[in-house]
């Protein structure tokens, strides 16, 4: 929309100045129903059945639709529901209960495939006493005789609430599908084909089909702007096909899903799907997707709202950010610092607390630039209990996805991990303190943005590829992800125990009160970074995550280089926490042993304290040990004052305070 055009309109007269007395228009039956429901003080009737006071017609005739149901074959999956409607039909006319049981039992024997247990039928009949099904019920509608029905209410198709309503056209389609399915003598595959064709044709009229690089089909509805993955398990797909009277347990449902998948691949358009945020690097436009299917389009000079699918940018439903009120972009500076990063007690160490805070803010901004970070840093909050690690990550998630967000426990298996990571945009893994054999490899893959491959269930050789584009953050008190290729990709946020504890509820209240300002500030930061695109890559960086290094440079205004260098040193230290050589020198240090030693001597000294790591050290070759020390020279020199004399000898200088004191005392 052009705001200037609107303002030009508003600067001159348009139309007359008289009272606007309405226009002549035909009445809308749907609106009439709304008025009626308001005047009656009741809700408008919905398509689905609802519990109401049962209408009684003692001694009356069965409704034609119920009679039709009595003569129709029913398969497993539909027997219960159909039995409920038939029982309700008998209850309505207060049919003699014994005779009703006989009639329904006969129907069960003749038409149910396979027949239900007699006890179950009685149970269903009792339940039916509490319900009342009207003409809008899908099963009754499928057996409706139309205008010739003497019980047809005058307003049968005039439902007012469109979100759950089935229009005349839809009811007809459901009837058509039901007729095909109840066709006597029809072969199942023919029925499936006909139903799937009707559904596909109708969906084509209402929206478009797409598929992406992972060969998954999607359906985009033009009116709701929802992008739905075509799978049997998808909830949105269940709602879409449910409107046609199809249920997941039925064969025809699976057939229809497979048909839609096939046609999406062959007739649909290939495109790329996004979650939560997208950056068009060439056009320098950022897109932020909200859970109400709207999209905030961010450009360096302005921001404006659109809908999902505008500009051909499609977001997968349920990946949206919780909507917020966007304020003035210049008025919300420092809100993230005040309400999020200042609440975290960062540790002053190799990297200072202030540097950690700046890096944390850069990482937060990076969450909105997935396209710029094909390799993503793993944000690791490491610290003792009570240091607010989980809270920090939870708050980041809440800023994005609202109060329902929470941190996730590490899944039991690597396969589960793949699924969670493949379907998330931001994942906060809490308490990653147990050693899992698969964890380090999976984390390394996630950081490099690869694909997770799995065998498709119930197949021998079909594989599924799950692209990983997820930002992962972890918390740990005793980290077990110290493998060097993982620690190279860590963005370590060391935290120390909080001095005083504020109730989480209070922190949440404060966070949500400031959320609009924080998000507005973030939008301003995104616009600022967009103006700097394409980001200049640093000429050389010690950091393996050079994508993040380039981003952090832009996000922190050039202050990142020194911080990242310190981070690299910290990464090395982190990777050596569990190293056998480190443990051996720590042992020597604890035993107050210094001076010149051969590797073999060190081994025999350390073996006095047999631990798993010491045993590992004892089994290492001299070359490997010297190589480890040489490669991490700076680290060892700093912590233990270890110097390599020759290929077999090292000097260990006792440095720690305890030994120095003891020496003085001696």
């Amino acid at each position, binding site marked *: *929309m052009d*705001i200037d*055009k*609107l*303002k030009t*309109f*508003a*600067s*001159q*007269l*348009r*139309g*007359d*100045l*008289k*009272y*606007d*007395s*309405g*226009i*002549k*228009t*035909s*009445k*809308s*039956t*749907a*609106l*009439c129903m*709304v*008025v*009626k*429901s*308001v*005047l009656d003080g009741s809700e*408008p009737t919905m398509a689905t059945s609802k519990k109401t006071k049962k209408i009684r017609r003692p001694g009356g005739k069965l409704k034609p639709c119920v009679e039709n149901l009595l003569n129709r074959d029913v398969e497993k999956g539909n027997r219960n529901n159909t039995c409920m409607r038939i029982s309700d039909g008998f209850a309505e006319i207060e049919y003699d209960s014994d005779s009703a049981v006989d009639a329904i039992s006969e129907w069960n024997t003749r038409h149910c495939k396979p027949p239900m247990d007699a006890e179950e039928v009685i149970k269903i009949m009792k339940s039916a006493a509490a319900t009342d099904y009207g003409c809008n019920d899908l099963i009754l509608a499928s057996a409706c005789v139309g205008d010739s029905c003497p019980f047809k209410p005058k307003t049968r198709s005039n439902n*007012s*609430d*469109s*979100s759950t309503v089935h229009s005349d056209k839809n009811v007809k389609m459901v009837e058509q599908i039901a007729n095909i399915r109840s066709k006597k003598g029809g072969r199942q595959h023919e029925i499936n084909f006909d139903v799937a064709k009707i559904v596909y044709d109708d969906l084509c009229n209402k929206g478009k089909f797409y598929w992406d690089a992972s060969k998954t089909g999607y359906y985009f509805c033009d*009116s709701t702007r929802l992008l739905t993955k075509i799978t049997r398990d998808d909830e949105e797909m269940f709602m879409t096909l449910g409107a046609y009277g199809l249920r997941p347990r039925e064969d025809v449902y699976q057939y229809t899903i497979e048909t839609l998948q096939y046609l999406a691949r062959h007739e649909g358009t290939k495109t790329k799907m996004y979650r939560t945020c997208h950056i068009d690097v060439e056009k320098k436009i950022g897109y932020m997707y909200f859970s*109400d299917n*709207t999209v905030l389009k961010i450009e360096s000079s302005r*921001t*404006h*709202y659109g*809908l999902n699918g505008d500009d051909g940018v499609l977001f997968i439903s349920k990946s949206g950010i919780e909507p917020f*009120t*966007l*304020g003035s972009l210049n008025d919300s500076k420092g809100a993230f610092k005040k309400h999020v990063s200042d609440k975290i007690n960062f540790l002053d160490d190799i990297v200072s607390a202030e540097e950690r805070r700046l890096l944390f803010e850069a990482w937060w901004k990076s969450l909105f630039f997935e396209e710029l970070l094909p390799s993503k840093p793993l944000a690791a909050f490491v610290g003792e209990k009570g240091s607010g690690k989980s809270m920090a990550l939870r708050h980041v998630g809440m800023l994005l996805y609202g109060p329902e967000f929470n941190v996730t426990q590490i899944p039991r298996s690597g396969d589960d991990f793949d699924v969670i990571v493949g379907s998330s945009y931001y994942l906060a893994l809490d308490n990653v303190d147990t050693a899992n054999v698969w964890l380090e490899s999976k984390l390394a893959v996630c950081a490099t943005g690869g694909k997770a491959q799995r065998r498709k269930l119930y197949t021998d050789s079909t594989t599924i590829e799950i692209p990983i584009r997820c930002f992962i953050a972890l918390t740990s008190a005793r980290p077990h992800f110290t493998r060097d290729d993982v620690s190279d990709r860590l963005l370590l946020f060391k935290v120390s125990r909080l001095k005083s504890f504020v109730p989480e509820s209070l922190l949440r209240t404060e966070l949500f009160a400031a959320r609009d300002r924080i998000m507005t500030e973030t939008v301003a930061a995104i616009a600022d970074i967009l103006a700097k695109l394409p980001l200049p890559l640093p000429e050389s960086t010690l950091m393996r995550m050079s994508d993040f290094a380039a981003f952090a440079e832009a996000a922190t205004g050039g202050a990142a280089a020194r911080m990242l260098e310190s981070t690299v040193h910290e990464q090395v230290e982190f990777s050596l926490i569990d190293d056998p050589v480190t443990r051996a020198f720590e042992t020597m240090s604890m035993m107050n042993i210094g001076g010149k030693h051969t590797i073999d001597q060190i081994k025999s000294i350390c073996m006095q304290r047999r631990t798993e790591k010491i045993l590992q050290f004892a089994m290492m070759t001299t070359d490997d040990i010297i190589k480890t020390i040489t490669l991490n020279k700076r680290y060892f020199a700093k912590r233990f004052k270890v110097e390599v004399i020759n290929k077999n000898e090292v000097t260990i200088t006792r440095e720690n305070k305890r030994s120095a004191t003891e020496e003085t005392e001696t």
Partner: protein
Amino acid sequence: MKLVHPQFHYVELAIGGVNKRGNIVTLIEAVAPVDTIDCFTTMFRFDKKFVAYVKDTGSVAGYAGPCWCDWLWYDIDAPILDEAVLTLAKLVKRIESIDSKLPNVLRTYFSGAKGFHCGIPIAAFGGNLKPSGGFAQTMRLIAKKIAHGIKYDDIYSTTRLWRMPNTINGKTGLRKVLISLEDVL
């Protein structure tokens, strides 16, 4: 067009601000002078009882007698215009989902500041609505039911003043003008 419920032809006219109240006129007289700033009439129109009430009490405050309106208005306001456009789009979509023909009969005004006034003709609601003392409350309930969670300002009080089309909004200097949905969506 023939006026529905012609006996309800009185409105309150406020020229120059919402505090300039108490001037009861007929619909024919309710014309804003060209280029006047902040002109309002009551959103609802009234019958003689209203005139008598104002004569007795000297004010429209507290009037709860019968009234009528030809439009069900929605007042969509937001801190920034883009957001208001978005809400308007949602409302139009919602109305369209109720009845696909309805968007053609909607009347939408840019308020001259940061919002829109969008009206559904009462004629579309059929003959069930009648002038009454609770008409404003009925409008409130119908509006809520139609909007289905979409945000709008609650303007459904009997004596609510409503900015007249083509008059100038004092805050911005822009007019409240009729626009087509294609202009904004």
